[in-house]
């Protein structure tokens, strides 16, 4: 059962520049009774303000907006990275964050080792990753290359590996920053099919994208963000 509910959620970022995160300034401010307060006065950026969304199984939500509108912050908040500064946040169901498909991949490790690393980082157990390894290797079509260090891969090959691992997870809620698509024509078709399967299995999809075509094709609900607010739902 997948459910996401946000009620008046805001996320504020304190911006600690070189100045504010220095202990010297904080100490100076506390010693001088805060008269230097202006120096430690931390700039706060309101990345999300007053966001209310209700998502249930079957919802495919598209997030659109300019750079810096808050799409990624919203995705990360849904992933549980940022705890909201205010508001109510309820989430039920397992979450797969495909925000960064290459997270956990080490370029000096071999393809096989990276399957383990990436799998663990996505929260799978060692055993589960071992069970899936065969499939992932086959799907990626890397053949003998899985034993080679990833630094020898082309960009396309790396994306194929990352894609194959990332899409092998099953979750109720899928979070994506842009559609995962993979280079060469032959693989793209296969990948597209797999992508659909994964999305079909998930209860809720939240997809941030700059492409209106993609959003209208994949999503049944759209939210436009501007300056951290929902301007169009």
């Amino acid at each position: 059962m997948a459910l996401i509910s946000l009620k008046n959620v805001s996320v504020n970022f304190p911006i600690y520049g070189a100045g504010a995160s220095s202990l010297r300034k904080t100490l100076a401010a506390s010693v001088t009774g805060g008269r230097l307060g202006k120096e430690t006065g931390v700039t706060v950026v309101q990345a999300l303000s007053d966001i209310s969304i209700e998502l249930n199984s079957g919802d495919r939500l598209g997030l659109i907006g300019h750079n810096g509108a808050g799409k990624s912050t919203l995705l990360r908040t849904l992933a549980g990275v940022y705890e909201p500064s205010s508001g109510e946040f309820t989430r039920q169901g397992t979450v797969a964050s495909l925000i960064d498909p290459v997270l956990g991949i080490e370029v000096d490790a071999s393809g096989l080792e990276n399957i383990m690393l990436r799998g663990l980082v996505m929260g799978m157990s060692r055993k589960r990753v071992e069970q899936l390894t065969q499939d992932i290797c086959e799907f990626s079509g890397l053949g003998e290359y899985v034993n080679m260090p990833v630094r020898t891969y082309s960009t396309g090959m790396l994306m194929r590996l990352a894609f194959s691992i990332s899409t092998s997870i099953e979750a109720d809620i899928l979070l994506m920053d842009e559609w995962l698509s993979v280079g060469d024509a032959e693989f793209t078709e296969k990948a597209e099919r797999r992508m659909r399967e994964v999305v079909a299995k998930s209860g809720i999809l939240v997809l941030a994208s700059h492409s209106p075509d993609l959003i209208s094709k994949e999503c049944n609900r759209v939210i436009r963000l501007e300056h951290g607010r929902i301007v169009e739902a």
Partner: protein
Amino acid sequence: MSQVHSNLHRGAWADWWDGTRRPDIWWTLAWFDIVLRYRRSLLGPLWLTLSMGIMIGGMGPLYSGLFGTELSRFFPHLALGVIFWGFFSNIVTDACHSFVNSAHYLKQGYFPITLFVWRSLSRNIIQFGHQIVLYVPVALWAGISLSWHALLFVPAFLLLIINAHAVGLVLGLVCTRFRDVTQIVTSMMQMLMFLTPVFWLPENLPGRARYVLWNPLAQMLDLLRTPLMGGIPDMHHWLAIAGWTVVSVVCASLLFIKYRRRVVYWL
């Protein structure tokens, strides 16, 4: 307005356990940290053993001459001192970076922060494991006779791990928020190396300077080193370290309870 309700909000204990219960993740990440560092070298992590061996092999005769101490007594003291000091100092300096270096993880998905504290600690345990093996040839050469008291090393090591984890949490949190602290800690550790009987023998200290042995690192070093040299560590040191453990665990708990979910905002 500033009311926050989230069903993802769990108690501090649950958050701590959430990371701690996944040794498969943190141990594997730590293992790869070490393996990948030496991936393209012929000897691999054996370099850890070798470079430590070269260091103590070179320092032993020189320092025993300088201090006028018999080599067979001084050499195991120095070897264990340098190995344990390296372990302490790496634990402390690495702890300062444990969250900063894992920023890309912490920002892309939810990870319990204790995962990264354990990762940095276990990386140092693996490294220490490669270095402590040098104790065997040194002990054989020096003819150290061990009794059952050598088993006191086990509780001492457990105390070290508890403290290392607690200090790791404290430094990880503080250094992420205040980046200067990393520099302060690094220079403090350099200074403490000379104030701790790593190279010199505590009995050579003039009476009025004995207060330097109050530093917790000197006490911890005594608890770990003395059993392996065939002696019994001072009772005062056990009590002192027990006290320090309480302090570090309390500090770590307080900071963890308050700031565990804020760390990601500081990265």
